[in-house]
């Protein structure tokens, strides 16, 4: 059997419900090396595989945010502590964290798109001396959909976390609107900054427009693209965006390298 098709089982250390239908799985993964922004093909035996991105950065542990949206992820979300997740990977490029050094890292995420960029934040937190801190811009549909609440609380102690929701609900006193509007109102400039973005395409495009008006250069922006990779090895064609294979050439791209294809 082709080596690249082999999966390895990892024990679920904990499973936390983030909101309705979205769970954060923590796996014990001794010796497994990965980078934030990379992804794994996760197998639900007898159902199929789904590409899930890494949401953490930690030796011997791996966290993944899984939403029960398709056949595979529905089966995965039924698993509990002590069960096993079958992974093959990691695949893809990941965020080039070394290139981010000596910069403040601006993290922009929308909905479940916060998962890959959470890994970036965790990496920066694990190597604080190399970076000039973090700032977050997160957007969710409504207050009850806010993900990573625990982390947000932690991050708020050390840095600025800008949070917005599309729809207001009782008990919400924060901003209402989309992430680009939140960015527009902020006072960030482009000095010694790198931006890591992940979220719906509309959000990414609008955010980039705003960031440009704030003086950001295109090579300061790193985007993680979402596609449904079936093989992860640059063959099946499902993740092709023009000449790029998101699974191998990405999923993380520097914006100036893909701006000509992003709207395809």
């Amino acid at each position, binding site marked *: 059997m082709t080596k690249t098709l082999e999966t390895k089982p990892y024990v679920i250390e904990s499973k936390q419900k983030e909101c309705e239908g979205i769970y954060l799985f923590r796996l014990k993964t001794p010796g497994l090396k990965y980078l934030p922004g990379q992804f794994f093909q996760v197998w639900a035996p007898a159902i199929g595989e789904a590409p899930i991105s890494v949401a953490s950065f930690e030796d011997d542990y791996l966290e993944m945010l899984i939403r029960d949206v398709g056949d595979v992820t529905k089966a995965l979300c039924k698993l509990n502590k002590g069960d096993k997740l079958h992974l093959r990977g990691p695949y893809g490029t990941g965020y080039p964290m070394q290139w981010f050094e000596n910069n403040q890292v601006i993290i922009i995420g929308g909905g479940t798109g916060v998962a890959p960029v959470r890994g970036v934040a965790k990496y920066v937190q694990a190597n604080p001396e190399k970076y000039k801190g973090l700032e977050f811009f997160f957007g969710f549909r409504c207050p009850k959909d806010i993900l990573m609440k625990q982390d947000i609380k932690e991050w708020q102690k050390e840095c600025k976390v800008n949070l917005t929701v599309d729809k207001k609900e009782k008990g919400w006193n924060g901003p209402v609107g989309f992430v680009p509007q939140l960015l527009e109102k902020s006072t960030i400039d482009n000095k010694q900054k790198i931006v890591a973005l992940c979220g719906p395409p509309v959000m990414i495009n609008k955010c980039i427009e705003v960031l440009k008006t704030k003086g950001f250069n295109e090579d300061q922006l790193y985007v993680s693209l979402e596609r449904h990779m*079936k*093989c992860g090895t640059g063959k*099946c064609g499902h993740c092709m965006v023009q000449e790029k294979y998101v699974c191998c050439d990405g999923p993380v791209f520097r914006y100036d390298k893909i701006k000509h294809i992003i709207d395809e």
Partner: protein
Amino acid sequence: MGKRLEKEGLDKFLKNSSKGGILVGPVITDMLRFQEIEDAGEICFEGNPTFGIKKFFVPPKNPILKFKGAKLLGVETPKKTVIFGARLCDTNSLLKTDQLYLNDYPDEDYKTRRENTVLMALACSESCNEYAFCKSMNDIGHYDLLFVDKGDYFYVDIGTEKGQRLVKNLKDAQETLPDIYPSTRALNKHNIRAYLDEKHWHKDRQNCLSCSRCSMVCPNCLCFDVTDVVDITLKNGERVRKWDSCQLKNFTTVAGGHVFREARFNRFRHFVFHKIQYFAEKYGSHMCTGCGRCIKHCPKTIDWPKTINELK
């Protein structure tokens, strides 16, 4: 130097070459198709089958592994196969498939199939359809052996060591290899990066039905879907790669239902540009051998190479 094989000796030659394996050739059943044959008498020497030989290397439904519960097992290795009568458009297409399947993350199943297969190509004396443009695709001609029809006999050109071993008992030919491509029309632009815009493709765009026939008959189209197919236990089964097409709307659907290449034009453009632009940018050759099948079998006969030739 080439070899000479009398036509009456073909059957014996093919039987000897395929000992211990299977022999495949173009035969007329409900249509002209490649399938396993017993005797050279079954072979049809005219025309080019609708479906090329890609099905022997990347089958339409290809089990790549088996699973018992969560345990993964290998699948059987395909048998030794001799393919006779494939045209150069089909054999050349394998060089492109190699790029994809043997470079990054090499695929064992494909590699075994390639190693276990002998390619005996058949040169075309004339263009097999009016849409072909194979001569202009600058492919060098990839085969183990190439058979050129010379009336009473075949001139046999040797392409590889594998082929050499099979013909060492044949007589030497007294001539040299003729032009192995038939005269066809030409694709006169090999870089179309500047023509991404919809306005250049107006006519084809309106005609395309997104039926995906083009990608099914294409010897180079390799996109596939991956699914787990279970048996009656619902626990054991196979992981199967199935041919898929970028022309179908759900090809780029992601979790939650968003479709990235939703507009029909975007899908049509991806087909053409993947063949003539994107693949060449990465691997240096086109993902097209100019066989013309995609046009011949298109329900609207969309002649995209003609459109390319007329681009200004």
